[in-house]
């Protein structure tokens, strides 16, 4: 029976989480959504557009009532939740109804801050926060009312402009000396004030409201400042910021600071209760915009559905005022202090202003007013932490390349986010355009969600469509190979969605340019098919490179190497004698102790491979394959070494035997050192273990090749079992996220090492990866009938004959491999 999921909050975060869960696995939960307002899911960001009459109320509904019905969601509307019993796992609502839950998501959002002055409870004092508020404001404005907006921040100004445009007379009251004081400096704030005054707004800056005056009917009659000045107004709109709504969480005994405290996977202090959106607090930071809320809604859905996911980290955003005709952007750190300095350019002729903030030679903030064409360029510099040493200070303020925005878009990296609200990158949009042959902004929105929230990125999406459809030569850097324009993620998603089981089906389904692919995409597709459907996919041996096909490393002269397994670098007289006898019998020209602590026999002819392995009767070291444990380098360890703290050779053997032979996107090298002297040189391995007194330090993402990368400390554990589980989860994460042919360090770098570490340290994430790895491991063992690779191959007569037969027509005789 499906588990019961209750979501408290029918707002943007709650609805998005439910939508994500349905997309991941529609059958997993029986879902109940409890909401206080009498509307289905709507886009709160667009309230100001509605007030401006650019959109109508029905336009901002994101999920209509049919969506709830069609997806069998029980919507409890207009009936706020009033209590949570975390022990009995029951939610109670205002009407007295009870809802049992197995898992609970709190998406209770925030409440507007109401200034606690006398008169704040009068009838026409509102906060612009809901559809009801907006409808009331529209009505009042239409009568030409005199309205005070308290709060000269982003939302207050958007509301004020909306009200003026609807016919109201509006006074904006702000305690700070200039507008949008947290996002703008005084110069930009004053420029904004002048432009808004020209539109008919009146401003009272540096003013503190003392009380709101009422008449006999409980309606607003005026407003008094603490300096005695009085305003004649008949309505007050409070826009002073928000406070997380935590009443239910507090009453239920959850940890609450300013918001409901959550970890990076959205868990509250109760294992069965999650929280997302504006009601939460993560690492002392609150959420106030939609982008982090949506990111959290994705994470909570993934965690609940057992899908891999990245931990939450705060999102750097730009702030823009959604008022037609006024262009401003603010991002990052915009106050000067000891370390932060700024560069200013003011263009009095064109009424434009730029100020860039720099800390330790790195761009850290921007304020642009009037001309925002460079906003994205500076924002990218902030996100990438660009050094500005290469620019002359004033040159930084010049527009690059004559300000050709098409060129900017073309050179924009694929991973750059175009839709900040939904976290959709340029690459994702392009993939969707190509894969689904999209031609409109609306189509892109439907496929990727880009542009469907605040909508300010729609022009960029449109430009991207023009760029893509107008110029086919636009190259994707992430395409799998010249046979396709698609990137890895799009291909993997398509395989998953369509449940394709053969490479031919993938090539057909995605309109490959070549019927049979190339040596880049064929092994990759074979790998991804197996990774996604380990129990269903049939190995395609013709898609394998020579090494993996012949189970031997091809050498420059066309002969092969034979390298038996010596787990942990340990061997025995029996093994050594076998190797010696085989070397003698087949006149092996080169015997070498190789880097991976085992013995290699070089110069074996293809037709002799089966005979050599038959005589050796040893496990293969799989030196030829992209598999998990082809190399675990270890020192001798504490059983011998007087400095050793762990049995490194024994642990190496344990890891080797546990994860032997699982296909990976590239080779995976490991090292186990018995003590911090690190004789096994594990800090440049894909996965390294260093023994310390009482534990094991685990390292990930090291590399030693054309690029040398030092591994990063993942964690310290106490038992060998924990080493195995961490490595297993890391291995599966790598299997699922790498481009075929990419080593772990690349994937770790691309994902961000802190993200990988946070994910692997999370018990449920680790368990989910291990579960999938276990399925892959079992499928691999089935495929080889539980035998070592060469023992299985020696029983596979068909492949033995097909692969190792060499015909000699010099004397018209036929020599077979067996």
């Amino acid at each position: 029976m499906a588990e019961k999921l209750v979501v408290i909050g029918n707002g943007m975060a709650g609805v998005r989480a439910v939508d994500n869960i349905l997309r991941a696995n529609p059958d997993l939960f029986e879902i109940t959504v409890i909401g206080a307002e009498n509307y289905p899911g709507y886009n709160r960001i667009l309230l100001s557009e509605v007030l401006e009459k650019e959109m109508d109320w029905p336009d901002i509904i994101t999920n209509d009532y049919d969506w709830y019905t069609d997806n069998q969601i029980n919507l409890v509307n207009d009936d706020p939740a009033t209590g949570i019993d975390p022990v009995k796992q029951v939610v109670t609502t205002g009407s007295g109804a009870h809802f049992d839950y197995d898992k609970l998501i709190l998406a209770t959002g925030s409440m507007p801050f109401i200034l606690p002055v006398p008169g704040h409870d009068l009838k026409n004092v509102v906060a612009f926060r809901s559809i009801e508020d907006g409808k009331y404001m529209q009505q009042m404005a239409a009568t030409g009312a005199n309205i005070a907006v308290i709060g000269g921040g982003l939302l207050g100004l958007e509301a004020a402009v909306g009200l003026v445009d609807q016919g109201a007379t509006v006074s904006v009251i702000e305690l700070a000396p200039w507008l949008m004081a947290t996002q703008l400096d005084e110069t930009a704030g004053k420029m904004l004030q002048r432009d808004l005054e020209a539109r008919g707004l009146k401003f009272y800056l540096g003013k503190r409201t003392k009380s709101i005056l009422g008449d006999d009917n409980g309606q607003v009659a005026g407003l008094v400042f603490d300096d005695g000045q009085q305003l004649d107004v008949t309505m007050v709109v409070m826009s002073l910021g928000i406070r997380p709504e935590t009443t239910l969480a507090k009453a239920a005994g959850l940890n609450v600071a300013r918001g409901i405290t959550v970890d990076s996977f959205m868990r509250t202090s109760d294992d069965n209760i999650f929280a997302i959106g504006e009601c939460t607090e993560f690492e002392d930071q609150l959420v106030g915009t939609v982008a982090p809320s949506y990111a959290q809604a994705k994470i909570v859905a993934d965690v609940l559905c057992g899908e891999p996911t990245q931990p939450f980290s705060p999102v750097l955003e730009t702030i823009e005022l959604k008022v037609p005709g006024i262009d401003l952007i603010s991002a990052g750190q915009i106050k000067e202090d000891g370390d932060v300095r700024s560069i200013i350019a003011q263009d009095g002729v064109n009424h434009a202003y730029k100020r860039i903030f720099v800390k330790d030679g790195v761009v850290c903030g921007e304020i642009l007013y009037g001309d925002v064409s460079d906003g994205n360029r500076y924002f990218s510099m902030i996100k990438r932490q660009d050094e500005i040493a290469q620019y002359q200070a004033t040159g930084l303020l010049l527009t690059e390349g004559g300000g050709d925005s098409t060129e900017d878009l073309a050179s924009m990296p694929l991973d750059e986010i175009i839709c900040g609200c939904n976290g959709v990158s340029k690459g994702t949009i392009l993939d969707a355009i190509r894969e689904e042959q999209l031609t409109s902004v609306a189509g892109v929105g439907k496929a990727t969600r880009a542009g469907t929230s605040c909508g300010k990125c729609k022009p960029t999406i449109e430009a991207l469509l023009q760029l893509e459809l107008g110029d086919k030569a636009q190259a994707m850097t992430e395409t799998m190979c010249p046979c396709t324009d698609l990137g890895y993620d799009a291909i993997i998603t398509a395989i998953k969605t369509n449940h394709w089981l053969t490479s031919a089906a993938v090539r057909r389904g995605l309109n490959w340019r070549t019927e049979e692919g190339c040596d880049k995409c064929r092994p990759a597709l074979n790998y991804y098919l197996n990774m996604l459907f380990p129990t269903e996919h049939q190995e395609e041996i013709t898609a394998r490179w020579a090494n993996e096909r012949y189970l031997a490393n091809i050498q420059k002269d066309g002969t092969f190497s034979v390298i038996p397994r010596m787990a942990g670098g340990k061997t025995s007289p029996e093994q050594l004698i076998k190797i010696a006898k085989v070397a003698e019998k087949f006149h092996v020209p080169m015997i070498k102790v190789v880097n991976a602590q085992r013995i290699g026999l070089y110069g074996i002819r293809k037709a002799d491979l089966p005979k050599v392995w038959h005589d050796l009767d040893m496990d293969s070291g799989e030196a030829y394959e992209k598999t998990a444990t082809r190399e675990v380098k270890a020192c001798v360890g504490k059983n011998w070494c007087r400095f050793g703290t762990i049995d490194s050779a024994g642990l190496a053997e344990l890891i080797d035997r546990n994860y032997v032979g699982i296909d990976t996107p590239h080779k995976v090298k490991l090292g186990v050192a018995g003590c911090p002297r690190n004789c096994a040189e594990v800090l440049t391995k894909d996965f390294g273990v260093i023994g310390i007194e009482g534990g094991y330090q685990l390292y990930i993402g090291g590399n030693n090749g054309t690029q040398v990368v030092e591994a990063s400390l993942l964690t310290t554990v106490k038992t060998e079992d924990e080493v195995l589980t961490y490595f297993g989860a890391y291995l599966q994460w790598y299997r699922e996220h790498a481009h075929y042919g990419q080593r772990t360090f690349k994937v770790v770098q691309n994902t961000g090492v802190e993200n990988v570490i946070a994910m692997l340290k999370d018990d449920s994430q680790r368990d989910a990866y291990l579960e999938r790895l276990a399925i892959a491991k079992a499928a691999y063992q089935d495929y080889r009938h539980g035998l070592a690779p060469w023992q299985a191959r020696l029983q596979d007569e068909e492949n033995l004959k097909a692969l190792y037969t060499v015909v000699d027509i010099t004397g018209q005789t036929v020599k077979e491999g067996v």
Partner: protein
Amino acid sequence: MTRKAYIADMADIPLKMGLEVQNGTQPMAIFKLSDTEVYAIGNICPHRQGPLAAGMVTGKAVICPLHSWQISLLNGEPLLENAGKAGVPTYETVIEAGKLYVMVD
């Protein structure tokens, strides 16, 4: 003088994987693409002498296992970025009563 050399029964030749044939100083790689379509080319890649019989077959070309040169099965010429460079010899194939023969010097 050209002679007709027996290679193997068609049924015993692997599909879309190379079969290595030793023939003194002129080794060959045989590629069966279907029951009626078989190609024989020189086995020594013109680039660094890689054994083409161990390569990956795609369409009517083989990709050398050493450094990924693509060689046409139709005429033995290198393809793509190496087009125009020296290729490998090709040999006429004959299928008779389920047996494969190659015409060799």
